[in-house]
């Protein structure tokens, strides 16, 4: 994806070359130390330690005056467990399209100090012509517990300089970490360090090249935490070309030009044949007289049902004539078809570029193309997003990992007869909690002959992201597969031991998701919710809301907690107290936990009951209006989460009157 995007952007910047004399690249003299110092270090109580992590990125003019990029990655690790040996004994170096590995070396240094250097023939290559990706791969030989492995390679990479992210932190501790960025005298890079990593320093002592560097004695490992965005939280650097003193060009990697290029590709540079194909496609399939929102949905549903999405690179997968003829498109093809269809239908649509917030947080302060990884479509008239080809995404419900973060919005602006593309960085709001619901309505009847057996009229309703994992697929699968899903929903939320008498499903069509709630209704017989103690019965009412996520363990939290999406749960459970019995602990039902900030309730769980005659109505409602839970809010969040888990354990004791 990124490679594809880069291709779209690269067009404008080729002429930064300077007719300077070619210099010798850094890697010419690069090698490992014959007898590395790390090999004498001792590490206790660890299964792996990074002992060297040196990266050099060099931009350099070749003899023809073209800019080239050389990338050196040099790593060494100490391995001290079978698991780590098995994880690290094979190394796969991915090589992107237009790149090649020109030097590679690998060795093992054993506990006894014996050095085993890998033969050249032990480096294997695998290629994939579909993705244009290839791999250089090898296995370390002679590894045993306590061995060091070391390898480095030099890759001549495609010369992209508009934004590169380099992650330097691992899940384990590292020593001797360094990154050096080199460029010709006329090219100035801007760099930014993230997540507490120190800034890079410009080296004024290297006269023939520009040099920035970061040298660290050690970097502590970042432990993976549940519901934390591990990859985004790792310490990393972003570097981008900012200035070319030759020609005095500034802001080279800003989003202005990127927006224009995207605009040209998706909106402007469309052939007449393509326009005609789109026009025929609209005529054949859509009714332009419909209201705009329905029309957007029609187009989206049609494309997602009839076009095959592929990651295989081919011009045919981006050309609208062949896409409409063959029904195969790649991501750019999908976006282009959406853009052209809505342009002809005169429905404003913006293209949004952002990043998966689990991988990297889009930085609104530092414009660099490495933040432009994922696409969304935005319809400003409805303030709604969708994704160009994901089946699970429909208007109003873009992939949640691409929301609650910033993005670059690119739109067409027309002044008179002149149209151009304008980009703006804005926040992509998360979809509000009210739109993602998982509601239960259960009417419970005790079997008069055996109070430990229940009949439940059960109604479950899902909307939004609670439904997105299955509802969009129901129209594509067989009845048999659907029944399996429905059985699973009942098994997981009620019990494996249920007899389903009468199952009714609403809204399992191909285009229901995002518009109509998925509803499952069933009459269920079960004896799983009542325990028996002589002539008393223990009614495990809490279990009727299903097992809840819990955070009972008192763990020291270090990273911000991030939920996938905002969400709501409304449950109503109704039952009649059986004749001749009483319940004295109904008050156990009452739980009330919430957290508010500036007068706004950010999250709550509240359960209570009402009794009328013999009929008890229990409500247990829960809502989360915020995804990103800062450490200062963590305890409050935990309390609310645990309240729901506590409710799950509420048991009512039925005793004879």
């Amino acid at each position, binding site marked *: 994806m990124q490679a594809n995007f880069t291709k779209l952007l690269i067009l404008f910047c080729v002429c930064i070359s300077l007719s300077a004399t070619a210099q010798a690249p850094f890697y010419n003299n690069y090698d490992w130390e014959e007898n590395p110092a790390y090999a004498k270090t001792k590490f206790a109580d660890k299964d792996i330690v990074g002992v060297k992590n040196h990266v050099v990125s060099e931009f350099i003019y070749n003899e023809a005056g073209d800019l080239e990029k050389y990338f050196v990655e040099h790593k060494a690790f100490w391995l001290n467990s079978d698991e780590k*040996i098995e994880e690290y004994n094979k190394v796969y170096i991915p090589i992107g399209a237009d790149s090649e590995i020109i030097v590679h070396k690998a060795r093992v240094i054993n506990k006894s100090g014996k050095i085993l250097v890998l033969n050249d023939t032990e480096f294997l290559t695998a290629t994939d012509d579909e993705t244009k990706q290839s791999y250089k791969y090898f296995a370390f*030989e002679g590894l045993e517990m306590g061995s060091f492995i070391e390898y480095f390679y030099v890759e001549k990479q495609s010369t992209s300089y508009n934004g590169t992210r380099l992650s330097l932190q691992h899940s384990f501790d590292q020593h001797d970490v360094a990154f050096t960025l080199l460029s010709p005298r006329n090219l100035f890079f801007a760099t930014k360090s993230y997540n507490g990593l120190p800034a890079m320093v410009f080296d004024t002592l290297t006269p023939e090249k520009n040099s920035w560097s970061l040298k660290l004695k050690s970097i502590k490992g970042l432990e993976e935490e549940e519901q934390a965005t591990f990859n985004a939280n790792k310490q990393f650097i972003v570097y981008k070309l900012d200035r070319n003193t030759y020609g005095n060009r500034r802001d080279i990697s800003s989003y202005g030009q990127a927006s224009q290029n995207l605009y040209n590709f998706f909106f402007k540079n469309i052939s007449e044949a393509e326009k005609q194909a789109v026009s025929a496609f609209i005529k054949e399939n859509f009714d332009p007289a419909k209201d705009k929102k329905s029309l957007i949905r029609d187009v989206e549903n049609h494309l997602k049902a009839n076009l095959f999405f*592929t990651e295989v690179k081919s011009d045919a997968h981006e050309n609208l004539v062949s896409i409409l003829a063959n*029904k195969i498109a790649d991501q750019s093809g999908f976006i282009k078809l959406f853009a052209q269809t809505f342009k002809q239908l005169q429905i404003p649509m913006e293209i949004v570029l952002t990043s998966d917030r689990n991988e990297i947080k889009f930085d609104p302060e530092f414009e660099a193309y490495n933040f432009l990884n994922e696409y969304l479509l935005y319809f400003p008239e409805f303030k709604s997003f969708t994704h160009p080809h994901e089946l699970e995404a429909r208007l109003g419900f873009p992939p949640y990992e691409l929301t609650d973060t910033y993005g670059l919005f690119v739109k067409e602006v027309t002044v008179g007869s002149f149209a151009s593309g304008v980009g703006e960085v804005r926040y992509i709001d998360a979809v509000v909690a009210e739109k993602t619901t998982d509601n239960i309505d259960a009417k419970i009847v005790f079997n008069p002959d055996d109070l430990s057996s229940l009949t439940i009229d059960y109604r479950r309703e899902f909307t939004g992201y609670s439904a997105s994992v299955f509802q969009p697929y129901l129209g594509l699968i*067989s009845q048999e597969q659907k029944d399996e899903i429905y059985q699973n929903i009942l098994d997981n939320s009620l019990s494996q*031991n249920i007899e389903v008498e009468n199952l009714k499903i609403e809204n399992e069509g191909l285009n229901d998701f995002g518009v109509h709630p998925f509803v499952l209704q069933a009459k269920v017989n079960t004896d799983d919710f009542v325990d028996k103690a002589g002539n008393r019965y*223990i009614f495990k009412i809490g279990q009727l809301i299903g097992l809840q996520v*819990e955070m009972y363990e008192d763990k020291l939290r270090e990273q911000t907690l991030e939920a996938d999406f905002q969400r709501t749960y409304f449950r109503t459970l109704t039952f009649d107290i059986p004749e001749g019995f009483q319940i004295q602990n109904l008050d156990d039902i009452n739980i009330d936990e919430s957290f508010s900030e500036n007068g706004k309730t950010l999250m709550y769980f509240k359960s209570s009951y009402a009794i009328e005659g013999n009929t008890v109505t229990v409500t247990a409602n829960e809502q989360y209006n915020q995804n990103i839970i800062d450490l200062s809010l963590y305890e409050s969040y935990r309390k609310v989460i645990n309240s729901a888990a*506590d409710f799950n354990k509420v048991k009512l*004791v039925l005793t004879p009157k």
Partner: protein
Amino acid sequence: METLLKKKNYKILWFICLWSGLAIAQNSDFEKYKAQYPDASVVRLNNERNVKISLENGRLNILQNTREEDLYLNASAIHHAKKSLSYNTFFNLLEVKASTLNSEESGVVVTAVKDFVEKDELNDAFYDDQKSVNFILPNLKPGSISVIETKEQINNPRFLNPIYLGDAFPVANTRIVIEADKDITLQFKQFHTDGIDVKISQEEKRGKIIYTIESKNVSKFSFENRSPNSRKYVPHIIPVITQYKLKGKEVKLSGDVSNLYQWYFSLIKNINTQTPNPDLVKVVDSLLRDKTENIDKVRAIYYWAQEHIKYIAFEYALGGFVPRDANVVYEKKYGDCKDNSSIMSEMFQIANLPGSITWIGTRSIPYSYSELPSPISDNHMILTYTEGGKTFFLDATSRYHPLDLPTSFIQGKEALVAVDSLHYEIVEVPVANPERNLWIDRARFSIADNRLVGKGEGTATGYQKIEMYYQLESQTTSQKLSNYYRQLFKKGNNKFSLSNFKEIDKFAYDKDFHVTYDFTIEDYLSSYENEIFVNLNLTRYMQVFDIEKDRKTEMEFDYKNHNEFLYSFDVPEGYKVTFVPENFSLENDWLAVEISYRQEGQTIHYAHKITQNFLSLSVAQLQELARIKSKVEKAYKEVVVIEKMN
């Protein structure tokens, strides 16, 4: 490029179809098959294969053409567009053609695939020769038919493709024609073809023998969680070239086990002919130091190999069959099953111990050597050692296996044991008893502050222990480890909290593994006035058997096992026991379940024991298991009542 064939050009279409050997389905077929297979997304209309086996220049030349026609029945059609055909050194893909046929008002529109893209397949094996050709079928929609044709060369006559008559989708027609020179003898081994409409016929034409296999309307097969390998239930026929005549002489290929063994032996006879690496000799010497009994020496070498040779698989051409030299394996410290067998074999030689290279199929392969004396019958290599009439099966690709316990995935399988260049033995690997694979959780607890509070100890042996060891390897931080044990010992509810765990003999090969721990469970008890209700069924083991109600295939398990949950509840001072549930037990040939309560003074001893004496359960047995489960779960609901004394 789209080829539009107007109705008036129907003859041309007809010609094309004849040329490719088949008529395409009509529109009416779409409705017919939709009605016939309402639960299918795809029907294979035709599965055709044409194999020509001839003797050329003293070698068997095998060429095959295949043609698959699929009809797409519903809205999922588009999601079947991506196709991938794999090939390797033994199985060469010479040509691929693919197209989509759609019935339009104007006639049948044929759209051919133009882009075929190659890929190296990086699969489980680190180094192999697996490649694939990939393409996308254009214009797929309900009612579309796709046609994929290939031309292939089979480079090893021992690897004729099995003919599967059924698949995950219905197969309307299968027609396989094998044309062989008269001097070539073929056998057809049938598996699970009972109840299938299949015909095998044979005729002689122009000095060739033509075998035809035909079947019709085979319904789709289900592939479920823990289903056996498709070889165990999907109908198939394996063609085997048993022998051929070359210059008047019979060349035996796969007629009986000795033919197979001779070929196998030829692949191993030239390994380990060099002098062993002195360092390897040193390793063996150090392992044997202080050991006098052969069995102890064998054990030491076996455990060393398990620990020191890491598993990396190699399947490049014949490299998938030939072990590498022990010296190489020793230098690299990694290898696959063959390499592990090779180095152990050499270490045995150094130690002057008799060890035999042994071929074996894992449990995914159901064929015995006598019914199918072909390399298709196995996929694995180990070393065997026999002493006092007892054979030990040494599979060093895993870790933590004590000498007496073979890897679980070869239990019950035939092993082909090399004796010398001419002789072999077939020995059956035993299946470990349930009692060899124990999980016992003992706990003693009482009530404090309305919580259950106590101490426990878990004990694991056999495969249960090995499985835990593997899981424990990845619990690399104290946080992960305590979380692991919390989940493992969790009882009552998820407010179970565990502390002070202590591991005893962790990662030991021959000793049992113990973990002791302290625990509390909150919000578990119910009370009413002076009574407290305690459900001692804190671990509801039977819940592991979550079986789909309309299960269609048998279910496989890794090993037999026995589990015990032994809980002693100390009734608090001032309370008396007013109700203890009845004991429960249930037993058949393959499962025994017991729940018992015994009061001893102020203590109630609870025991829940489960013996699983099976490696697989048929559909009928699974239904029986579901019935048993619901009975046990009823017993799980029984509660102990204690009452405060005035």
